[in-house]
């Protein structure tokens, strides 16, 4: 019997999405994947495919136009999954809080497991955060995690959950906006 959990622990695939950040934290994530900080020694690979990823690294305060995309990417990822918010502006809105085109922080839309502070978050912090997320991943179940907003009903396709199009359009489901 394969111990899938063990394998997952040693080969974490991440999905990185920029939801309106200033690139500062994005290039620090890139630096983490480079040879000096070498996140890959933990088996972490950056693959831009939500359907194969275990961890969503998200940067930026969530602009109005990236909301649906964030939720869509989140719902497309299979469980168990962890969400790591990188950077102060991702956690709370940071310097962008209160600007007319941003939501203050990503946790209004999707549940966040690890918050990494700093503007920009240093690579050391990011490595710590990712490893923390890895620990949390072990205790997660396969139960479906719902985003907090913009969520339609689950639709089934021959016993499988059809993950396409679960994210609703802004203004359709929530009264706000």
């Amino acid at each position, binding site marked *: 019997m394969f111990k899938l959990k063990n394998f997952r622990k040693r080969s974490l695939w991440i999905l990185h999405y*920029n939801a309106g*950040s*200033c*690139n*500062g934290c994005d290039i620090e994530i890139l630096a983490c994947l480079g*040879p000096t900080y070498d996140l890959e020694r933990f088996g972490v690979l950056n*693959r831009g495919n939500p359907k194969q990823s275990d961890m969503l690294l998200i940067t930026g305060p969530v602009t109005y136009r*990236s909301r649906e995309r964030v939720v869509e990417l989140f719902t497309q990822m299979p469980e168990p999954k962890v969400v790591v918010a990188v950077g102060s502006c991702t956690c709370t809105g940071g310097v962008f809080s209160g600007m007319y085109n941003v939501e203050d922080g990503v946790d209004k839309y999707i549940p966040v497991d690890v918050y990494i502070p700093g*503007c920009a978050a*240093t690579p050391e912090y990011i490595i710590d955060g990712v490893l923390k997320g890895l620990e949390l991943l072990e205790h997660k179940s396969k139960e479906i995690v719902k985003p907090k907003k913009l969520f339609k009903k689950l639709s089934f396709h021959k016993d499988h959950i059809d993950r396409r199009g679960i994210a609703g359009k802004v203004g359709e489901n929530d009264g706000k906006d």
Partner: protein
Amino acid sequence: MSTTTKAVDMQIPLGAQHISLLEPVKFTFTTQNEKIVDVGSDVGFVHRGVEHACSSKFEFKQVGFVVARICGLCAITHSMCYTAGVEKLLDAQVTQKAKYLRTLLIELDRIHSHMLCLSHTCENAGFEAMFMSLMGDREPVMGLQEAITGNRVQFDYITIGGVTREFDAQTAQKIIQVLGQTQKKIEGYIEEFQNNWSLSKKFEGIGALSPEGAYEYNAIGPLARACGLQVDVRNGLDYLPYKEVGFTTITQTGGDIHARNMVRLYEILNSIKMCRNIVEGLPEGEIQTKVRGKPQGEVITRLEAPRGELMYYLKGENKKVLDRVRIKTPTFATIPAMIEIFKGQDYADAPAILASFDPCLSCTAK
């Protein structure tokens, strides 16, 4: 085979989330048998509304740190361009030493930004080892920035009236040493980029732009210099001592991906030379001067960011909060040229061409 098959237009989207993109941008390519015939672009995904906040929520003393958060790669150029504008409005005098330190940081930033772009080009060419090696060699430069300013990306180094810190003799020594190392590495890379098939020959003639086209479509920055145009704002700046520290305009001919890479590589060498001159010839004096008053009037300032010309327009009415902050960013100006280049290229080359522009969408959308 008969040749009567009608060419069908196919629409292929690239983005908003894509592995070869760092930032969300959406291109819609209309293709005919692999050839791109038309491109539509949508760049507004990261629009945050910084301009509005700068003229409503933040005081003019704070705006310098807010505009730095427009872009993490050219944070320092944004705050410098803004600060230069406000200093002109306030009639502030900045010491020669502060000017030198500002130039030093801007050039260090250019080095690391260009290296990141080059490594991204390598990655999109499928040359993962080179990507890693360039990223590794970029780290010492980031280390220098941290040693001088205390932060790796968002320096918050330039304030109205001067800079926040200076460095001691030990750090100066380290800067010289790291610059020497980096120079050797870059010379190696130049050879590699010129002779390695997967980086040079493959890219020759791909994504080319003629000098007339560059002029017509308002190309700026490395994109224009790769076509042979002498476009560099650093030539005529009055508020930074570029002439004294040994600046030369780098141009190449060809206008293709290869030429753009070469422009970036030679510019890194030029920046290293400037940094060395600055550290060795740093004038004595204070780093901060007191500035009083509130901005009054209008001003336009320009500065050469790693990607091209950056322009700020400021308007103040003798109040704490500015009336208008208008930012024109380099990538925004190059989009017409970009679209022109894409036409007639193979779809398979699209990510490589895109990376060679080094687009910065968080600048564009603000």
